[in-house]
């Protein structure tokens, strides 16, 4: 589309669309140039991309201070692991179940929001919910194996592909990430996505446009829960052992940080946040405390100097990077 007001723009939104499709295609060369460890990090980035995209729907688009997403993540991971370990359920099917159970958890969280528990109350009750889930994992010894964690089986297949090393995991994760990010983008750039953002902007007047606000609050939470649930199922395979500590308060902070550092309400921002906060702290992990120190400082700096996230740097290159809630 043409830019009005003489906005200088190096990239038009049409070119940008191609760029978006090129990224996953270009990513296909990664397994040929990266070693197992680097590939593991790339796979982790793919998992966290979905975590962040899902979380961002609640924080950025719907504008609710709900921290239940780490719980959705854990619920997704444990759902998949338990089904595979005890039910012999194929991985492909267990991913679907993680999406469904994650969505149910999202529904539960949305009910509290609909009961008028908002802002800090919502933040605190969702934090408590996450910690209660962690307690269940820790004390559900018979099923979850407590703090030892639940080891997933060695022979995991995705549609016949054995996931026995990082390379096949990469292709499967890339596929899942691209599909879900695209689907989320479709959703957010439609009348549904607009209704969700409208609720963030002004819930009362949204209803005056005939928009059933409760329905879209539920939808946002359920979709977020499902996407993050799938991420959980991926995480189970990535780490091969599902541990309660992986879903604690520290992880809530990391996930929240990814959303804010990348950019609230922006899908591109979510990807940037996942990349930044997966790789950088990984580098500093060798020194105790440095990863946290570094992580905290990055977020503080972003909050002070880039309140719209790192993605706002891209806006200077082209306004086409700004999140829009429709598609030409």
């Amino acid at each position, binding site marked *: 589309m043409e830019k009005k007001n003489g906005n200088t723009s190096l990239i038009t939104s049409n070119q940008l669309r191609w760029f978006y499709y090129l990224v996953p295609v270009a990513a296909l060369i990664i397994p040929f140039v990266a070693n197992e460890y680097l590939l593991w990090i790339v796979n982790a980035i793919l998992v966290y991309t979905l975590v962040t995209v899902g979380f961002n729907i609640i924080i950025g688009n719907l504008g609710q201070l709900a921290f239940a997403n780490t719980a959705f993540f854990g619920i997704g991971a444990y759902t998949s692991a338990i089904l595979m370990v005890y039910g012999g359920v194929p991985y492909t099917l267990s991913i679907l179940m993680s999406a469904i159970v994650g969505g149910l958890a999202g529904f539960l969280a949305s009910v509290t929001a609909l009961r008028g*528990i908002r802002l800090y109350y919502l*933040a605190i009750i969702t934090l*408590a919910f996450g*910690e209660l889930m962690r*307690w269940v994992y820790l004390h559900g010894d018979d099923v979850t194996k407590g703090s030892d964690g639940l080891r997933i089986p060695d022979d995991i297949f995705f549609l016949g592909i054995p996931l026995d090393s990082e390379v096949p995991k990469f292709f499967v994760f890339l596929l899942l990430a691209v599909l879900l990010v695209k689907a989320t983008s479709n959703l957010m750039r439609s009348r549904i996505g607009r209704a969700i953002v409208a609720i963030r902007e002004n819930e009362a007047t949204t209803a005056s446009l005939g928009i059933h606000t409760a329905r879209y609050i539920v939808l946002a939470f359920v979709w977020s829960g499902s996407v993050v649930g799938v991420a959980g199922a991926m995480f189970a395979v990535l780490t091969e052992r599902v541990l309660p500590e992986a879903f604690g*308060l520290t992880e809530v902070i990391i996930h929240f940080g990814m959303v*804010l550092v990348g950019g609230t309400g922006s899908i591109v921002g979510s990807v940037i946040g996942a990349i930044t906060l997966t790789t950088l702290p990984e580098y500093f992990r060798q020194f*105790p405390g440095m990863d*946290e120190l570094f992580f905290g400082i990055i977020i*503080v700096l972003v909050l002070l100097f880039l309140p719209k996230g790192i993605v706002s740097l891209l806006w200077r290159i082209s306004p086409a990077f700004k999140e829009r809630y429709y598609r030409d």
Partner: protein
Amino acid sequence: MDIFLQLTLSGLSQGAIFALIALSLTVVYRATTIVNFGHGDFVMAGAFFVYVLVIYVELPYVFAAISAVLIMLGMGLGVSRGFIDPIKAGPHIGFAMMSISLGYVLRGGARFLWGREVFPMPRVFDIEPFFIGNLVVTGDVLFISAIVAVFLLIFFFIFYRTTTGVIIQAVYQSERGATLIGVNVRAFHQSMWGVGLAMGALAGILIAPISLLHPDLGATFLIRGFAAMTLGGFGSLGGAVVGGLLLGVAEQLFGFYINSSLQDITAYLIIVAVLVIRPAGLFGRTVTVRV
């Protein structure tokens, strides 16, 4: 019955610390409408300063404690001025993340400086336990309860019986009104951050001698502070105290009479139960969030 009383007593002394944390969160929240999600780490920092000053600088405990409170008071002013004021125009999500991140920096700093160990602190309140009837009273229980009780008396005296307190209450009621009578709201916010963190540090100082210190100490206390606030009524000063004491007792009783593993999650169960059944808590005004 003896067991019940004994549990109640140790619950109350635990609860006194939760009350202090909840109260310090409330002081900041009432003044600025910001909930300090990094408060647990500030409490931890207070405890660590005491540890450093006692072990490395070899200050007597009392002086170390006073210094730590003053350091955290200054930190509160600095946080408000340097990190909260600049993002004032932004949404609440930014405040939440800012406070979390600052806490994270403190935690990372503590871990960086001390590695991954846990530290025993020399016992300070080391007196012989004595009996009241069949009740055992240890030095810890006695000192913590006494110090918190004295502090609360001073706090509520200042708040309800002095001019300063009246002014603070006035600003809580209406910032615009306060500006009209010449109160500098910005300075007020800063000092309330200072007071809040100093009170948190006091809690940290009391925790330090009775528990092992480690950088992750804060999280558990933060959630307990939230639970105490929620139970007492979010934003109510007296409620924070009562909520903290009740939470301390509830943890002991749940842990003993129902299941010891329940002690860890009493706080979470209370948060969920209160918010679902009666979001206003015991003493809060009815919360009406416009939907």
